[in-house]
């Protein structure tokens, strides 16, 4: 059996508030999600915070995430907890960044279907921009915890301040062990 299977893929044909993969089977060992996305937040905003949510849970105290990032010459770290999603796991480009440039991100979710443990996620992202000014670009890695033993059956990507723009694309893979 192939180690990687495509569960879902979508390229947005227009702006959308969120993207959701809603019927994730429990038959894989791990999930791997690639995200090439741009948020509609405009003006001087070059990047956008993103809530990553599971199983339609959009409120509550079950999410916490920690990020190691750099948007200037000094890397830093930040943590958010008790919020509406994993919002320090990845970020994406916003509409103030170089035209036609989409954020490049991926998320690993190991052992997503087990019902004994809380779920951990590992994110990696780059918000590229033809701009070297501090905080007009952003790169980083993030760790996320969803304090639930429920198997993950859906994933939602929700920019905090606007829509996902047309051409944003999402590919969700199921990964199996031997």
């Amino acid at each position, binding site marked *: 059996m192939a180690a990687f299977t495509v569960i879902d893929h979508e390229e947005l044909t227009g702006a959308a508030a969120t993207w959701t993969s809603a019927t994730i089977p429990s038959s894989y060992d791990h999930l791997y999600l690639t995200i090439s996305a741009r948020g509609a937040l405009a003006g001087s905003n070059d990047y956008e915070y993103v809530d990553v949510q599971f199983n339609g849970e959009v409120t509550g105290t079950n999410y916490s995430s920690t990020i190691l990032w750099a948007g200037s010459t000094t890397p830093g770290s930040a943590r958010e907890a008790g919020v509406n999603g994993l919002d320090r796991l990845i970020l994406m480009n916003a509409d103030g960044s170089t035209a036609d440039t*989409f954020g*490049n*991100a991926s998320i690993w979710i190991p052992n997503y279907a087990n019902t004994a443990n809380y779920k951990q996620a590992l994110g990696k992202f*780059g918000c590229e921009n033809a701009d070297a000014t*501090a905080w007009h670009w952003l*790169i980083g890695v993030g760790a996320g915890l969803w304090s639930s033993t429920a198997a993950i059956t859906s994933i939602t990507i929700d920019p905090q301040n606007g829509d996902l723009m047309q051409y944003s694309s999402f590919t969700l*893979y199921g990964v199996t062990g031997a």
Partner: protein
Amino acid sequence: MAVIEAIATTYLEADAASVTFSSIPATYEHLQLRMSVRDGSTGTYGEIGLQFNTVTTTTYSYHRMTGNNSTAAAAAYTGVNNIALNYVVAEGDIATSYTSIVVDILDYANGSKNTTTSTMLGTATGTTNWAMAHSGLWDSTAAVNEIKVIYRWGPDIKRGSEFTLYGLNSS
């Protein structure tokens, strides 16, 4: 059809100025380039770079976050003629060491998107120790049909370096 397919592998039997993957089909959703690289410069580390579709103009940018032993730093570059990948182990370091690099290029054939890269790089020899998260931009919406890996400090990329380009399908 496999989800992940090897498009091509190049193993350097001799030192080379560059490595090129040409005629990359547009049929995949994403590309991933995995490299085990040693730079030919005389210091403990050097640099290589990425160029797409034979374009050598100053249409590239890159940003990096690095850890070197106990020191963290970051840097930004725009208006350059390649996406530089820094801190690649070189001839001044242990003879058998090579740097590990994985480059993700999402949606590389989409004519509505500029090409971006997301890279993780590790160089750990005991003498030279770098971990790096890196992103790059080629300010062009052209589909990527060629990737060229060049030396920046040179004079070459060393024998024994290996490069494999994978295509990731989305159906």
